């Protein structure tokens, strides 16, 4: 019991706390790959600190919803962080939501983001909101289909069970999971506003998706949003890890194994971040109306994975 509560707290803090670090690491890697020196892995923390200290400037028309939204986003992302098994699978809070609920949680955060973006009533804000929702409503089905494949394997949609099945039953190779993994990778690129769907570092409003939504935000609100998106990236990474390379996650009472799990986690995150940076360096952002095709492909792959699961791995 204590163990589970401890792990719960530990991993929550870990995810919330280390999220900016992951972003920093990715940016740093990208800088290196582009032969730049880079601002260092801690840069995101500095940015957040600076933003928190600033005075908030609110657009005249902004309604309370506008101020509420950042907290909701942050809260949702933090909540996700408490559900995904990162170090150990016996999380007391994990029972509160399964993968479907996770998707719902992401959607909730997104809904508030989009509404807030429309709240001030600027051209770019509403445009960004629309694009975000468009991408999302195509990514969401793909994401759920991705989740279905392991769920079918584990006969369950709750992450701990899935992890236990994949990591601690006898080892089996699941070709279906390969499809699911690729699809998941594409979806998470789209969901986290990364290249090739969106460019987090762009300054051209007309090409923005996520950035366009938060143009009106400043100071602590902006900080919360940035942090929330960082946690989102973190969350997606750990979800991917727990679904597709769950080895190292502790099953039950095992104080000693926690450090091992930690080490494994760090290793995986470093690798994943580097891979992400590499991909972002190699590929270019695509036009907005190519995004549906991109996500359609992801959807197709996910469904294929599921069918393979149903047809071959009976």
């Amino acid at each position: 019991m204590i163990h589970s509560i401890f792990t719960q707290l530990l991993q929550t803090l870990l995810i919330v706390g280390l999220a900016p670090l992951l972003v920093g690491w990715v940016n740093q890697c990208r800088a290196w790959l582009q032969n730049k020196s880079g601002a260092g892995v801690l840069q995101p923390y500095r940015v957040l600190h600076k933003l928190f200290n600033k005075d908030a400037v609110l657009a005249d028309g902004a309604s309370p919803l506008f101020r509420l939204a950042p907290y909701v986003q942050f809260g949702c992302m933090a909540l996700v962080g408490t559900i995904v098994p990162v170090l150990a699978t016996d999380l007391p809070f994990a029972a509160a939501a399964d993968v479907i609920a996770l998707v719902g949680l992401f959607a909730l955060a997104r809904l508030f983001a989009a509404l807030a973006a429309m709240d001030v009533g600027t051209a770019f804000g509403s445009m960004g909101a629309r694009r975000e929702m468009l991408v999302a409503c195509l990514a969401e089905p793909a994401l759920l289909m991705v989740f279905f494949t392991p769920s079918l394997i584990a006969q369950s949609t709750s992450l701990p069970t899935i992890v236990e099945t994949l990591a601690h039953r006898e080892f089996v190779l699941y070709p279906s999971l390969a499809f699911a993994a690729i699809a998941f990778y594409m979806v998470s690129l789209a969901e986290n506003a990364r290249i090739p769907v969106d460019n987090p570092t762009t300054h051209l409003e007309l090409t923005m998706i996520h950035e366009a939504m938060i143009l009106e935000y400043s100071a602590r609100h902006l900080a919360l949003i940035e942090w929330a998106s960082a946690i989102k990236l973190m969350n997606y990474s750990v979800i991917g890890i727990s679904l597709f390379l769950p080895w190292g996650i502790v099953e039950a009472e095992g104080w000693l194994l926690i450090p091992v799990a930690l080490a494994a986690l760090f290793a995986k995150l470093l690798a994943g971040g580097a891979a992400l940076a590499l991909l972002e360096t190699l590929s270019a952002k695509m036009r907005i109306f190519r995004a549906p095709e991109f996500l359609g492909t992801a959807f197709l792959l996910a469904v294929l994975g599921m069918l393979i699961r149903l047809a071959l791995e009976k």
Partner: protein
Amino acid sequence: MDSLSAIAANVQPLHFVLGVMVAWLILGGLGLVAQHSLDFVGHGLFPASAVASLVLAGAGLAALGAPSQAMILALGLPDLPFHVRLDALSAFFLVLLGGASAGISIYSAGYFRQGEGTPPGVHCVLYQVFLAAMAAVIIADDAYMFMVAWETMALSSYFLVTSNHKIPAIRSAGFLYLLLAHIGAIGILLCFGIMQGGHGDYTFATMRAAPLTEFWASAAFLLALFGFGAKAGVLPMHAWLPEAHPAAPTPVSALMSGVMLKTAIYGLLRVTFDLLQIQLPWWGVLALVLGLMTALFGVMFAAVQTDMKRLLAYSSIENIGIILAGFGLTLIFHTYNAGPLAALALAATLYHCINHAFFKSLLFLVTGTVLHSTNTRSLGKLGGLIRHMPWVAWLGLIGTIAIAGLPPLNGFVSEWLLLQAFLATPGLPSSYLSMLVPVGAAAFVLAAALAGYVMVKFYGVIFLGQPREEKLARAHDATWLERIGLVWLAAGCVVLGVVPVFVLGQLDHVNAMLTGHLLGQQVGGAGWLFVSAMAPERASYSPLLFLLGVLAALGATFALVRKLYHGRMRRGPAWDCGFPLQTARMQDTAEGFGQPIKQIFEPVFRIDRHMPSPFDELPRYEGKAEDKLWYALYLPVARAVEWISASISILQSGRIHIYLLYSFVTLLVLLIFVR
């Protein structure tokens, strides 16, 4: 409500139900007496009717657990008096009716204004008859009473829809509505004709007993699907729905969309699971496919609408599609003897019924208030209302989150359960189904995700941003009676969303009755806090914890930010990347929101574009998305009828010799026939 149910438990709930129906009719009569006194009708009759609705809901709750009760009324055909029966299924739908109509009635108390179409008293009588007729449909226990109640329901709602009959568009909408309703009713009638014993006994009891061959059972099912589908707005009998809902006064649209559509689902369940002795798998597949198609169709068209009530109407089509899909899934599981799964799917279906009743009514009423304070239904003329009508806006937000199927509100629970049911299909013996149904799940998820898109458009364009017209600044908030109604429905959304285990516990009575299986431990296994599908370790979800978690995280963040840093804040003009002159017209419009959907799902629509030429004085682009089915199905049928009647009119050529010739030839033919 509990105290009410406690009282109702002592006496027979059925008596309460009949009493409520009578009360409604009396209230209607009073309305007819004092036709034009808005005050009496508004502040006297409608609240009373709302109270009656509460009593009805209480009686329904009480009857859910109780054994079924039957009565025979002194009305009807000589050999066929009206039979009424109150079992778990009817009780559930009575709760739905009572719960939703309570909010709508109290809202209507503040809604109806002088000088809008027919006088308030007439509104009142039609409204109350409409309510009573729906209740009668639900408790009817013989085909005759069912049909009478069914058509009375259609008729009263038709008159409500056309209450502002000076406008031709409204007249044609009402006509289309009543026509499809009537044709559907004939289909239902024929379905009963198949199931009746053949010796003038139309009670449901004998129909349950009557054994049918597979062929006739299928015929009956198809007729029922056709008839009830026409009422529910299932493809391709949906055409009336997006016309009639916007035409009607808002509380009526809410009642029609929230409750009346469900009576069709009730009928479908009643006929398929209760009256028919055998069910076949392919029925389920048919219903599933139809449902998913309807859902996708509805949501895609909702995405391209620019009239807020039309948008909601199409979204109703989508939700009906989801419900129908759940029904089909239930049927599939049931026919493959996967009892528990059938129970799960059925619970999801019913759950979505009641959820839709609440959030769709809520949203329709919200549009009603907006309509009253702005006099426009077009999304292109709204915006920024959250500042002038905060009550409506914030309550509307609840409805938006609920209908978008997001946790922790009620929309998510039913969709979650349905997805769980979808995930269980690989267990089916038929390999085809076990592979195809999960793909159906994909379609379902796509529909749900698009619903989120639609609702962001709906809420954002109406309530957020800058007002697109000057007059919007004068928009006033809901009156206190309207607020009560809105709050009631919103509260319903929250409660249904947060304590699913209790709701499912109640639904179990219906499961037991229709599928013969209880969910019981499957959903309640992990304690009252967690709802779980099949087994806790399989999947579990706790909306309450969820809600608390979000709130806690939210509160903690807020507190921490305030504690560690500061709360300083000042206002300034919107930045918008320093873009100098920005007007409200630069915001994204409803059309703008529809455009990408049009582009991605082009084949679904029939789009006629009007492109500006380079030499236009006032260049304007216009792209109207229309219903392909209207052109592919309805117009051809109309033309066919036209053609036949044109060609048949040769019979009446006006020449007496020809007439005599008919008579002569008829005679000769018959004489030959006799030989």
